């Protein structure tokens, strides 16, 4: 248990030591999105009746930050450790692969939530979305960041150079988050794109998270919870199997 805690602590300590890059920079980026999109669309778009566009946008941006940073945390930490070679210190230690998984994923959850909280608090200056069901908010934030943290572990293990990881981030994570309803309701999309969005797990994470704020969503939050929970279970099983096999970690 102490092995797990130490690895988790090391990961969070690393985040603190480079907080400008890991915490402040993503918060600033999200605020820039908020500033520009709300300025351009505030007068033109009303997604839910009586809800300002800026207020609608905030939960989406917060969740996007949570997801992207959860992914970035485990994936970048692992690839840095692999490329510099210091992953050996973890591999030499009597750390079970389950502990390894839990430490990296939990650290990703912590960073995701820290950035998400930072974005939310700063965004309150622009608009104050209601908080209808805080438990749904916490539940989707934790499950979503755990799912992306797990995906980050897989990407970090698979990638052999920064270029490959950047490809994973730019061609998979970014499109899936941008096309998930962060900036719009999928009901505003043509039918084809609406249908396609239903195959994007990120859509369920954003929609369920937003339900916690407004009590309204494109789809039932219970269904979203089932999809996100199911994806997390499958991803956890896959990642644990990968770690158990020693794939790309133990030649």
């Amino acid at each position, binding site marked *: 248990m102490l092995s797990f805690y130490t*690895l988790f602590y*090391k990961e969070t300590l690393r985040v603190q030591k480079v907080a400008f890059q890991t915490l402040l920079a993503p918060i600033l980026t999200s605020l820039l999105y908020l500033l520009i999109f709300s300025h351009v669309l505030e007068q033109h778009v009303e997604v839910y009746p009586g809800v300002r566009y800026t207020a609608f946008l905030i939960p989406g941006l917060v969740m996007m930050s949570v997801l992207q940073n959860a992914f970035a945390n485990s994936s970048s930490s692992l690839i840095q450790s692999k490329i510099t070679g210091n992953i050996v210190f973890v591999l030499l230690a009597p750390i079970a692969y389950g502990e390894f998984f839990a430490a990296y994923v939990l650290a990703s959850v912590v960073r995701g939530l820290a950035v998400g909280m930072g974005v939310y608090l700063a965004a309150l200056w622009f608009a104050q979305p209601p908080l209808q069901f805080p438990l749904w908010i916490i539940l989707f934030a934790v499950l979503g960041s755990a799912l992306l943290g797990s995906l980050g572990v897989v990407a970090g293990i698979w990638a052999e150079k920064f270029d490959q990881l950047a490809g994973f981030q730019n061609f998979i994570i970014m499109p899936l988050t941008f096309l998930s309803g962060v900036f719009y309701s999928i009901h505003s999309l043509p039918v084809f794109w609406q249908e396609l969005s239903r195959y994007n797990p990120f859509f369920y994470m954003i929609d369920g998270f937003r339900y916690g704020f407004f009590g309204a969503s494109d789809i039932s939050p219970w269904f979203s919870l089932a999809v996100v929970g199911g994806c997390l279970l499958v991803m956890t099983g896959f990642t644990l199997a990968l770690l158990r096999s020693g794939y790309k970690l133990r030649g």
Partner: protein
Amino acid sequence: MFPAVDARQVHKHYGSLHALDGVDLRIEQGEFFGLLGPNGAGKTTLINLLAGLALPDGGHISVLGHDVVKQYRDSRRLLGVVPQELVFDPFFTVRETLRLQSGYFGLRRNDAWIDEVMHHLDLTDKADTNMRRLSGGMKRRVLVAQALVHKPPVIVLDEPTAGVDVELRQTMWRFIQQLNRDGHTVLLTTHYLEEAEALCGRIAMLKRGQVVALDSTKNLLSSIAGCRVRLKLTDALPVTLLPQLVEQSGENYLLALPSFHALETVLAELRLAGVTVQEMALLQPDLEDVFLRVMGRSC
């Protein structure tokens, strides 16, 4: 009593390369054991399998009776490995690095031992320095300290003195020898054969993934019969002595003698030919001679 390390018919392939080809090796508890071989012989592969950094394709390895695959947590707890590569985590200070490594091994309050290890390796002054700011030699010391934070009964040193200064070598060997005297088993790979000769009680030589020699250092040295004599002569070496010539550089000659008594014959031949000896040195066989002979023989 379980052996410290027990390798049985260990095989490892990397693509078409048969990196380890049926290695059998048994290292007893308390030994100071040397693993020698040219580059690519399989030394680091064997250590990686022992440490769980790679998985064997065949055979078994155990550390103090614990299989390194099936009981990997137990076997890793008993091992302290100093890796060959000079790796470090740039985010942390020396003390943070050692505390984290202790935690990985399940040790919560380990500062007393960390302080002692740092003292023995002359790291105390650098305890709060970030790893990035250390010289190569200092980083190497931290690697050694990291391997020792959990007081492992079996210490594995993979080329620990490659590219480090004399002072560090002496400091490190003093500490490792002390640990060996206290009962820790030491497995060493090195390119410095004089180090292996001075430190190791037993030695295995690997070539192309196979153990080609395994004996006590004393027996290996005595397996080279005879001695060598280095001579500086006023004239050319008489033809009768040419069969014994190993090396010539100007008027300096190195001759191999079947025994110490053969020196009398050599001097008589030189006298007969009217050649005067200006300088003479008798050389005992060393591990390098054994190494070259074993590696040459098994080509």
